[in-house]
């Protein structure tokens, strides 16, 4: 399925400065795998050492959080938007 993956600002420098990437994938897992295959530096920001999606990074298919769907096995439909939404806090150096 052709899907669009939206790259949030804090991760754009690791994804060739792109705001979104078009990919072919049948599930969220495939989409993220294709994404990190294309942009290797993204991997450590999305995944911890044990291969799990980092808990401060949420992934949505269209407007639904995958945690409440089938997680990374969530199936994708043609034209779906996969959004990566990390936590941001602005401001301080602290």
């Amino acid at each position, binding site marked *: 399925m052709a899907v669009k993956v939206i790259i949030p600002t804090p991760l754009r420098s690791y994804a060739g400065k792109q705001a979104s990437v078009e990919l072919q994938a049948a599930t969220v897992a495939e989409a993220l795998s294709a994404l990190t295959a294309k942009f290797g530096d993204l991997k450590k920001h999305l995944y911890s050492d044990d291969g799990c999606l980092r808990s*401060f990074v949420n992934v949505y298919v269209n407007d639904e959080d995958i945690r409440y769907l089938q997680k990374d096995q969530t199936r994708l439909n043609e034209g779906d938007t996969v959004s990566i939404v990390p936590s941001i806090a602005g401001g*301080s*150096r*602290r």
Partner: protein
Amino acid sequence: MASKTDIAAPKPATTAQPPLSLSKEEVLRYSRHLIMPEVGMDGQLKLKAAKVLCIGTGGLGAPLGQYLAAAGVGRIGLVDFDKVDLTNLQRQILFSTNDVNRPKIQAAAERLCGLNPDIQIDTFETMLTSANALDILKDYDIVVDGTDNFATRYLVNDACVLLGKPNVYGSIFRFEGQASVFGYSNGPCYRCLYPEPPPPGLVPSCAEGGVLGVLPGIVGSIQAAETLKLIIGKGEPLVGRLLLFDALSMKFRELKLRKNPDCPVCGARPTVTKLIDYSEFCGVRGEETSAPASTVPEITPRELKARLDRGDNLFILDVREPHEYQICNIGGYLIPLGDLSKRVNELDSSREIVAHCRSGKRSAEASEFLRQSGFRKVLNLKGGILAWSDEVDPSVPKY
């Protein structure tokens, strides 16, 4: 699926009995509210009775405080321990140039009182901590989070859940913003969305990543709007909704937020029943004591200057971004940190290399990478170009 029917119809979030009337002057001041059926006299009296705590008087706090004061929120608490800095004035429009070096809370209170002398402004010139948060928050109806670090966000969230108060959330990064209302009307809290903070160093701050000055103005105004809606009990608040805003494309998107039944703070079986050590939770303390960068040999700016003056054959590597190089530079060879792994063959491993960036953090990473790649003679410039400006050449502008 979270929908309007899943969340109880929001009731006004204030607790006090509204006052019985407005003065003649107040009627005139708020006339543009009063002539709208959505606000009217009822709504304005609710605003007058409302008590809102604004945590942070910076980028988000500036529009927030001003619009709440303008709207006639009867009691506004302000929490901020910081002093106004010149770099704040690019976005923190509550302050003027004359306020630089003044405590923010003083300048903010003055400005808001000037805008609306009829309201009560409480000031808390202190850092919000686990020791004082419950005490400070307890007297207010609504808390608005205008803070700038993860530890405080988790603190505010947890305190609001423990006290049963809505938490109007807004956050920003570069030109992107988020907004929501947590802990209200059986909706999710911040931890339902983000159970854990990012490890330090993985998400840059405004100081490191920059921010479009107007962005917190937009997001803070959204927070003000949400706060007013909660008070007057009208419209649909951002409960169970994460508003995402991208200023560059000027697009708003919305994602559904669900209450996590296993949330450690607001779930059915909470494990966090009192405030914790949030610095530890966010790993900040860990970063201070065991930064990997400390294993890289360092050179101070003065030492570097002395060696250059002596004629030592040093290769200065600048790992900042091109736009930073344009602000100021010390003639270094520019390879941005993100490109270093691809361009490392441009460097001569037989040379003694001094890596620098703005403050020494990125260059520490670069130095570590080079050493692991077999470069034997790499030094990290301690404190970066900022320290060079301080210690060696004040004509180099700091940024």
